[in-house]
């Protein structure tokens, strides 16, 4: 779910080798064009009109001939609330993640009254930060629900943090910090491959 490539570019500039995948062809085309502006981002491997299941399949097909051990980091940020089959995505991710050291980051919004008020009523309808209908509150997930889905997909939780604003964004300045005790609205979890489960050979 790389979308327009904002995160992909940041990770590339910070030194990562990035493969970026999104079902949208148009968004990824925009991302590719934008990536040409900085020499550090031109080498991002963008795959538009592509799903993580397809990427998993591709690596599976090359498994015997490549030395691919898995990705060190996989990011699904603000993705799971837009996906219909979360289990399928997580299973594919597990097969792509390096065992032991690989880490999966998932961020989404919790399904609470507070998140409804802030993220939907507030952000979409009152402040107009996002177009109305961007988010379907029913798709929001709590850390516990995601942990359950992870477990079913062979992944286990490392930690969970809320993402909270340090002060109200009065002058257009959004300053976030991590807070393990407040997961009511935005939160981010870290996961890894479950130790007992080795990726299955097909």
């Amino acid at each position, binding site marked *: 779910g790389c979308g327009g490539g904002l995160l992909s570019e940041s990770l590339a500039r910070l030194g990562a080798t990035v493969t970026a995948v999104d079902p949208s062809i148009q968004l990824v085309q925009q991302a590719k064009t*934008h990536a040409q502006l900085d020499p550090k981002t031109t080498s991002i491997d963008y795959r538009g009109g592509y799903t993580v299941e397809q990427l998993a399949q591709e690596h599976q097909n090359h498994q015997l001939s490549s030395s691919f051990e898995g990705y060190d980091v996989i990011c699904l940020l603000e993705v799971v609330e837009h996906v219909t089959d979360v289990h399928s995505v997580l299973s594919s991710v597990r097969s792509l993640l390096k065992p032991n050291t690989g880490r999966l980051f998932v961020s989404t919004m919790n399904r609470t009254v507070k998140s409804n008020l802030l993220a939907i009523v507030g952000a979409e309808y009152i402040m107009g930060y996002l177009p109305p209908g961007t988010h379907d509150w029913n798709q929001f997930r709590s850390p516990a629900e995601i942990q359950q889905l992870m477990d079913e997909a062979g992944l286990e939780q490392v930690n969970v943090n809320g993402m909270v604003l340090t002060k109200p964004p009065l002058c257009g300045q959004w300053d976030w910090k991590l807070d393990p005790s407040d997961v009511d609205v935005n939160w981010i979890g870290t996961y890894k491959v479950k130790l007992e489960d080795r990726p299955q050979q097909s």
Partner: protein
Amino acid sequence: PPSQPPAERVPNPRSYALSPQSLKILGESVHSTLDDRLGYYDSMQVWQANSPSTLTFTSRDLDADPEKSTYLGACCEDQALVATLWEEIQAAEVTECLTDTRLKSVKCGDSTMLASAQTEDGSIIRASVLVGADGGNSWVRKAAGISRIGGEYEQHALTFTVSLTDPIMRRAFQRYLVDGGPLALLPTYSPKHAVVVWSTSPETLSEWKGACDEDLVHHLNSCLREGPQRVPSFMEDNMNQSWSAGGIFSNIAYGAERVLDAVHYGLAMASQHPNPTFLVPPTISGIASPKFTFPLSCFQATTYVKGRIALVADAAHTVHPMAGQGLNLGLADVRALVDSLEKAHSSGMDLSSFLHEYNSNRHRSVSVSLGGIHALQRLFRNQDTLLTHAKTFGLNVVQNVGPLRRQLAVAAAHGIAI
């Protein structure tokens, strides 16, 4: 690249008044290189030509802890500062440094396009962020199509170095003269030399710029060392008007003036300030350098950021030198701009991502500082009697209300609005 000025005994009058905060922004390395070329001062005494009130700022106003604030400000030669900064540039990991290169156009860029500058020989330089740090007549600001509001002052400034009969003892002085403009005496690294910055009308300036040294020295000493005079009588101001009700009103006016005088003198003498209330500045013995004049203005660019172009310091705003704020405001801009660049860089984001934050922070802060300094300039230029009473009263109040004086000192030192 410029080299360090020779270690002459006569300091160059082209100097800046740097606050401790500014020296902190410049960094340890620059500060220690400059240290013996700085004219430190621990106090700044501000007073008027024709009233007894005095306002004295000290380093204690910046920080009550004597360990922490060891000075109020430092006067630094432009040559020494520029040479030191060039040394820093050469020591740092700067990819490319083009000198003797003229630009003929710029493009501001945006989120989908980099900023660019075209040189006179036709080559194009592209950048994530383009910073205009080219002074009050900024070419970058004009080329980017950023307008500014404000105007030139009728006053100009004259600056030159003088020799003193006695050491200036780490004290700065500023007196608002009868014609309104301030006359400032700033310490230098040489204890028996000071820099004079005199803001007044262009006519007065050219008269004294051409005068012989002896006459000028005599005039400066009388301006600085003559005792404060009584506020001119209200009645004298209005001699031309006919007071048909005569006697009674003139008595009342006279009585009111006496009361006001008593109040002013009483407040001045009862000052709670720990230091002595009034110090006579040292006697000037001679003119020690050529004299330089420069025009004064108060301008604020309508925005500091356009696309990927950012303006800092005088390119963004100019101010009357009376508060010694020019470079301090500029360095505060630099700190804020670097913070916004670091914020983007540490997250791997496009460097221009937080330029809008730099703009809203600094534009707002500087607008208030400019407003305050400009208001002060307008206030002191006016010699109206009633206003003089108000100014006298006001100075006395600020002097005596410790917290207020300290707040002003801290705000001035940090280049921020109160």
